[in-house]
């Protein structure tokens, strides 16, 4: 009953009448009333024993997601969720041995005695054993396969991300591009095109904070997520549950590390692009973590020019960092304050006649965020999280003329997101688990153009998005048939619109190792981008709310799949899918290289369908996976369907990893990974003909001309197939009592020149077709990491 009092106290009756918008009041009232009924019902049912608690790392207290917890010689068991929390229901009275296992950690077995109507809290710390990177995912996935009704989900830990070969620096987004259903447009792309959806249809969350431009570092080459602080990354490639919304295609949820609550520790690393430092340690009843990374080449160039008295400079750098403080006043409560920030800065000064600078040009952009999270275990069956978050993406382009300030101008583009949300997981019993939540979002999107310190143009949008969701996972027949039904209801303030998004999931086990998954859902998106998602290169996106003249973009997903485990280390999944889009708002202009933001949008529809295939296997020292996607994507313009530039028919990724045996000198116990991919070509418009376009200059009376081309339809031709081999070698070491590791990557081992686009070479007559690729040579990179 205390829960009801808490809820009522926070939203007393009189508040409803004070709120300006009756709809907001309606949603809150409905949500609270529903929870009151639900919790009352649940309390009546709560007559069974349960075992619950947290599973954490004994060395640093980091939560261990999807650890296996079961009662020996029974069918009772569970897996920890992404927060490391588990619960086993309906445990009869008796004596048991409870087993906690997690690959690369020592298994713990405890004797326990269960009394009638008891809720036993058992928190366990597991000690790390030998690192076997390749098996982490298998074990966690095997447990989730048995427990969860979910489809199209992949999971990575920070260590796994770092073991995948990549360009210059480890990157989460590049790792996700290896997964079925996820494609990239070219060798350097850091965007996720998932099952025919564009990158702006993906929701990116970092510790619950929405990140609006997650791939904005180094002009779009790197994501804003430092893999060294990632604890767990989860990607729903489609069919995501009612807890998530406001995007049409996928959800990427990243949880960062909590900080070592046992001892002070740190990590310093140096890669080809950035240098990083992480410091973590205990606080009274808690922990902290601070991390930062920055490019260092500009500093090296600056130091060099100071020493040599040169004027050399590198006008670009980026940095980002995360700071977290955890406070656990009691085992049931945890407060976490997290802050993230980062920026890319491009700045240079010109002087036309030597001497002092005449002008300065500066472009900077970056993400910032702040969140306060309260996690509470109200009782073993009720787990809740309350989050208040602020997220901001700001970009500024400014020009300053030191001689004439009337020439100065500045452009600001900013999106601010204030979010408050409450999520509850209610483990009613072995048959029902409820998820309920409320999410309130106030957005502020602004654009300013100042000239000579005068404001020339200003646009500002302040939409509100209020969402409630509820979902029940119902085990109709335990271990055989489970259904997950959810409903997401959203109020959007522009034109006072409502969206109801139902979601349905089903899992049927043919046998303990084989399951059929089905998901269906409706998805709505209230923010759109006004720069084309079909351009090869883009640094960041320009967001706008869906305005009053346009309907809300909507998508329907239907996904079915078979998942089969041959043993704990081998699994296969086959997932056909179909997505239908309505009311898409797409910029009219779709530049191939870059895309200018434009408020000129057209309404479109479309669809995508295909099959994703995934096979994973571990055997002794070797592990690997193979992912293959067959996909078709279409959008509509002027009553004609066309293939957008990210329509890739075939996409194959093969990853192989090898744990080097002890007997091999120097490299013993190191890991060697290979990644090979093969993909069919993307559509493009071919140059079919050319003609001269003249202009007459009255000043000199002369005619000037330049060549223009006539192109085929935008999707009439396909680029050649692309393929590439990357290699990664990593080795742990101990030197002078300090532990660390080094790695070497080679991207594009056999020097494949994958064509990104064609151009005409007008130096020849007739002009030849010139192919451009982004990796003309094999690219090595290396890094070293020290832990203290």
């Amino acid at each position, binding site marked *: 009953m205390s829960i009801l009092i808490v809820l009522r106290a926070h939203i007393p009756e009189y508040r409803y009448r004070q709120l300006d918008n009756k709809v907001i009041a309606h949603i809150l009232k409905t949500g609270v009333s529903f929870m009151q009924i639900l919790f009352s019902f649940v309390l009546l049912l709560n007559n069974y024993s349960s075992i619950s608690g947290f599973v954490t790392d004994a060395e640093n207290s980091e939560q261990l997601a999807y650890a296996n917890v079961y009662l020996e010689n029974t069918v009772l068991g569970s897996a920890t969720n992404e927060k490391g929390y588990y619960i086993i229901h309906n445990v009869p009275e008796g004596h048991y041995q409870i087993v906690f296992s997690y690959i690369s950690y020592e298994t713990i077995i405890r004797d326990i005695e269960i009394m009638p109507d008891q809720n036993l809290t058992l928190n366990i710390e597991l000690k790390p054993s030998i690192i076997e990177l390749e098996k982490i995912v298998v074990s966690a996935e095997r447990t989730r396969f048995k427990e969860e009704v979910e489809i199209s989900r992949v999971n990575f830990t920070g260590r796994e991300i770092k073991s995948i070969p990549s360009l210059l620096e480890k990157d989460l987004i590049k790792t996700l591009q290896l997964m079925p259903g996820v494609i990239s447009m070219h060798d350097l792309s850091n965007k996720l095109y998932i099952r025919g959806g564009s990158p702006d249809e993906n929701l990116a969350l970092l510790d619950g904070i929405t990140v609006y431009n997650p791939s904005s570092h180094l002009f779009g080459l790197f994501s804003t997520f430092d893999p060294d602080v990632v604890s767990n990354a989860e990607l729903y490639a489609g069919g995501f549950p009612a807890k998530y919304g406001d995007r049409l295609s996928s959800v990427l949820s990243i949880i960062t590390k909590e900080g070592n609550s046992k001892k002070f520790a740190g990590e310093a690393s140096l890669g080809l692009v950035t240098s990083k430092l992480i410091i973590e340690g205990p606080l009274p009843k808690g922990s902290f973590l601070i991390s930062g990374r920055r490019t260092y080449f500009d500093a090296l160039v600056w130091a060099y020019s100071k020493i040599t008295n040169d004027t050399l400079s590198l006008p670009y750098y980026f940095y980002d960092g995360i700071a977290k403080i955890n406070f656990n006043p009691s085992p049931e409560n945890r407060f976490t304050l997290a802050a993230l920030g980062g920026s890319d800065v491009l700045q240079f000064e010109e002087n036309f006649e030597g001497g002092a600078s005449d002008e300065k040009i500066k472009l900077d952009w970056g993400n910032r965020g702040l969140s306060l999270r309260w996690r509470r275990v109200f009782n073993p069956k009720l787990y809740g999280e309350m989050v208040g978050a602020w997220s901001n993406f700001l970009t500024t382009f400014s020009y300053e003329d030191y001689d004439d300030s009337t020439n100065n101008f500045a452009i600001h583009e900013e999106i601010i997101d204030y979010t408050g949300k409450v999520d509850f997981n209610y483990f009613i019993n072995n048959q029902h688990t409820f998820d309920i939540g409320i999410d309130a979002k106030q957005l502020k999107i602004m654009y300013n153009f100042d000239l000579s310190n005068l404001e020339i143009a200003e646009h500002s949008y302040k939409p509100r998005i209020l969402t409630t969701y509820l979902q029940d996972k119902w085990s109709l027949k335990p271990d055989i048939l489970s259904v997950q039904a959810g409903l997401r209801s959203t109020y959007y303030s522009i034109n006072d619109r409502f969206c109801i998004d139902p979601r349905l999931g089903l899992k049927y086990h043919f046998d303990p190792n084989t399951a059929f998954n089905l998901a269906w859902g409706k998805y709505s998106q209230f923010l759109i981008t006004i720069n084309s998602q079909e351009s090869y290169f883009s640094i960041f996106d320009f967001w706008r709310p869906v305005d009053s003249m346009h309907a809300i973009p909507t998508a329907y997903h239907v996904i079915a799949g078979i998942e089969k485990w041959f043993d704990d280390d081998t699994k296969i999944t086959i997932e056909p899918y179909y997505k239908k889009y309505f009311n898409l708002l797409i910029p009219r202009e779709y530049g191939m290289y870059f895309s200018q933001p434009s408020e000129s949008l057209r309404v479109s529809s479309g669809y995508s369908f295909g099959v994703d295939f995934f096979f994973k296997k571990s055997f002794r020292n070797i592990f690997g996976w193979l992912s293959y996607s067959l996909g*078709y994507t279409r959008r509509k313009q002027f009553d004609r369907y066309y293939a957008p530039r990210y329509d890739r*028919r*075939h996409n194959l990724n093969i990853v192989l990893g090898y744990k080097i045996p002890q007997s091999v000198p120097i490299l013993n116990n190191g890991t060697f990974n290979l990644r090979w991919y093969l993909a*069919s*070509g993307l559509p493009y418009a*071919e*140059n*079919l*003909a*050319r*003609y*001269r*376009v*003249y*202009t*007459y200059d*009255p*000043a000199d009376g002369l*005619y000037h001309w330049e060549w*223009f*081309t*006539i192109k*085929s*339809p935008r999707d*009439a*031709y*396909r680029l*050649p*197939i692309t393929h590439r081999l990357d290699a990664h070698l990593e080795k742990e070491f101990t030197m002078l009592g300090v532990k660390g590791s080094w790695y070497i990557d080679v991207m594009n081992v056999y020097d494949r020149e994958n064509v990104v686009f064609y151009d*005409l070479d007008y130096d020849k*007559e*007739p*002009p030849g*077709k010139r192919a451009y690729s982004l990796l003309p040579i094999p690219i090595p990179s290396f890094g070293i990491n020290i832990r203290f």
Partner: protein
Amino acid sequence: MKFIACDAVSVNEIDTQFNVYTILSNRLFFNAVKVERTYGIDEIADLSVDDAFVTLSSENIIDTLYSYEDWFYTTMTLQPSKTYRLEVSKDDIDTLIGITTLPDAFEFINIPFDTITLEDTVVFTRSKGAVFYYCLFDRAGRRDALWLKPDTLDSLIKIRVGDHIGRPPEGLCEITVIAFDQNYYKFTFEPDDSLRQTGVTGGLGLCGSAWQEQLTLFLDLPE
């Protein structure tokens, strides 16, 4: 929808089209028309199609243009506010038709060989049918020019000399004003993103026109 779609290519062929460029004007003894065509990417491009049949007509007058050094020429005297039709044809290429209406004549209000200073204004009447003006101030050793898109309500167009003319030299200043039609303006300053064609059908390019007047004044600059 192809299953393979790897190197699969849809073969698209483009029919050859004429590509012309002309600005018919009153101030020339002859007017010139550039006649070219589109070329395949693998074709060597010529400078012109000199064996095309080109005519210029207006009301009851038809003139067949003659080819000389990559251009086609006509000596037809052009009248203000008259519509002219350009036709370009050749076997195996679709006939191109260009239509343009010459802007109306206009006149300077200022008196020829009058003296002006930087404070004075050059005034001329508006040309009906013109949307864009080019003004050139030509003195010995110096030229100053401006482009002008005046308000549609103005019947007189005024240009303050001092706003557009720099310092020395003083002396005779020949002022040339060219009034361009809508076709020229659209082709040059507001082109369509796809094919460049204004005032023509059956092909590409520009069929535009202009009316030109000149005035000579004496520019007096202060000490």
